[in-house]
């Protein structure tokens, strides 16, 4: 496994970790599987694209804007709609978020058309050279952002009152309510945070790949896999899961066993591995019961 493959895997993994982080937050605290996550990522991507295209705003600088907008959108979504079905069974929230995903994706198709978009700042090909290995600076920056956000979110969850309130609600919502925590508001806040992280992920992804409204569906499944690998209920777990996923992805993609290319079977192998992890160690690498 060459160093280039490792580097590619790490960089990709950081991005996926960010994608999984928001997903893990909602799943761990609210106990809902948020299929609208990919739509939120899409929102961040298109926002960054239009800011870059119309105002020539550097994508890294558009991060705070997309994060703020998605935070507000997520808050509104949770407080306005999802809070109504919080105590319903799993299937209900699954389908509700699926409905939102369909709605937002098709709205995007109407508003933004299916044209391929990408954000290509002038420095997009700047790279560090370590021997034969190329490390793209822009992707490295994205990785840095992912690390920073993960660290920031982890610190927020651990050291602030609100963060502790969120963790408390994740552990036992009724007990938290008895302690005086406004659970509805916390739910909305958590979803908003998840949306914010998703928006950041979207903005970064806009720099990596060209996209259309339909390109984001895959991130729901990737987020699942990342969270399962890293363990539900752990902030660093999401990042670790992402990195493991990224490394696996890049290694399998270029591997050849006895002349047969594994790359063509990449998705199948990764998901079989996912199922195996679920069966053998459902808590993932770093997961624990509840959200710590």
């Amino acid at each position, binding site marked *: 496994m060459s160093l280039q493959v490792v580097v590619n895997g790490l960089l990709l993994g950081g991005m996926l970790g960010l994608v999984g982080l928001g997903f893990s937050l909602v799943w761990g605290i609210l106990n809902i599987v948020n299929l609208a996550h990919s739509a939120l990522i899409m929102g961040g991507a298109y926002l960054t694209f239009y800011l870059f295209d119309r105002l020539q705003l550097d994508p890294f600088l558009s991060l705070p804007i997309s994060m703020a907008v998605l935070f507000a959108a997520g808050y509104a979504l949770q407080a306005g*709609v999802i809070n109504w079905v919080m105590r319903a069974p799993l299937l209900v929230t699954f389908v509700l978020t699926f409905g939102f995903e369909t709605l937002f994706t098709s709205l995007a198709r109407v508003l933004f058309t299916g044209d391929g978009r990408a954000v290509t700042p002038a420095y997009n090909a700047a790279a560090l050279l370590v021997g034969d290995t190329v490390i793209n600076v822009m992707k490295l920056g994205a990785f840095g952002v992912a690390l920073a956000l993960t660290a920031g979110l982890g610190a927020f969850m651990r050291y602030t009152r609100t963060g502790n309130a969120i963790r408390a609600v994740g552990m036992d919502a009724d007990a938290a309510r008895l302690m005086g925590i406004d659970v509805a508001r916390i739910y909305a806040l958590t979803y908003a945070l998840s949306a914010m992280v998703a928006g950041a992920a979207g903005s970064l992804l806009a720099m990596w790949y060209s996209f259309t409204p339909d390109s984001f569906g895959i991130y729901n499944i990737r987020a699942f896999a990342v969270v399962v690998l890293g363990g539900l209920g752990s902030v660093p777990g999401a990042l670790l899961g992402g990195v493991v996923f990224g490394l696996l992805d890049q290694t399998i993609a270029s591997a050849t066993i006895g002349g047969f290319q594994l790359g063509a079977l990449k998705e199948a192998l990764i998901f079989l591995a996912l199922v195996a992890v679920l069966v053998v160690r459902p808590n993932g690498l770093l997961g624990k019961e509840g959200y710590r």
Partner: protein
Amino acid sequence: MNLAILVGGLILSLVVAGRSAVTVRRGALVALLGLALGAPLLTPNPLTLAAVAIAGAAAVGWNIIGGFTGYAAFGQAAFFGLGGYTMAVLVARSTGSYGLPAGLALPLAGLVPALIAALIGLVVLRLRGHYFAIATLGVGIAVRELVNNVDCVGLPSLSRPLFCLGAAGGIILPPLRRSEVAATNLTFYFAALGLLAGGTLALALLHRSKFGYGLRAIRANEEAAAVMGIQTTRFKVLAFAAGAALTGLAGGLQVLINGSVLPDQSSIFDPYRSLEVILICLIGGVGTVWGPLIGALVLYAVQEALTGLLGSGDWRPVFFGAFVILLILFLPRGLQQFTTGGGRPTWRILWRNLTANRV
């Protein structure tokens, strides 16, 4: 016209599933059967209705594992596709295929997915809730990719391969002839209808059988069921296999209608199928006997109505998404709430549904 048939069938099935007097319900059932059998007289293209029946039959399959047993599987499209591929391999006349008559191949198209589901189920049914959902989702993706990459499989001692799946190119079935078209379309329609009717009958029998009671016990509380002596693993695997068989049969029929099969995501392995079967059961009532039928009728009636009102534009999926959201907010238990649930369709019930599960 199709829309009128669907709505008519919907009203009749709601009555059948409801709590009116027995004579009324029997009458409605007879009317429903009459409508179903006579529909080809009312519409020149019974295949549109056949598509509804196939969706309903696939949903019956999901209902067994997701509704009765409470294990919501999110990868049902895999079995739909496996059934389709089995049919294609058995019916086609290219290398690696068997050229069997379609009538003979259909039951086998249900058997293969059932066997595969049994094997997968042994591993995957240990998981619960969200984890089971994701595992089945992952299996669905993996199956499609595997099929996409397998061309011919054979044993070295045999002169011809065991079967050929055609890898990315898929399998094309021998074309029908012009003179056979009308008859074949009718046959497809009645086959799909038979599948749906048989599936609903199976659900009804299941509902009353010991096996069915066992499944519902597992849904209610698996530990308690085990304590009461129900062999949960065996029951779950059987349910999973049975569900896969029915969905596979529906897939096999769909491939016959299409005339070819591709491992493409826009073809028989379309992941939307997995969500469609769940949606259908949700609309009609998860875990009920008439749920899949009612749900399929409602879903397709809404889609026909949307196409009629909005044409073939980009706005259709937007309204469809909005419909799904409103449905799940106001009718999370589906129309079952008004039929077997015994409630009256009032605004108050809808409001209560909305607010019942608040934070």
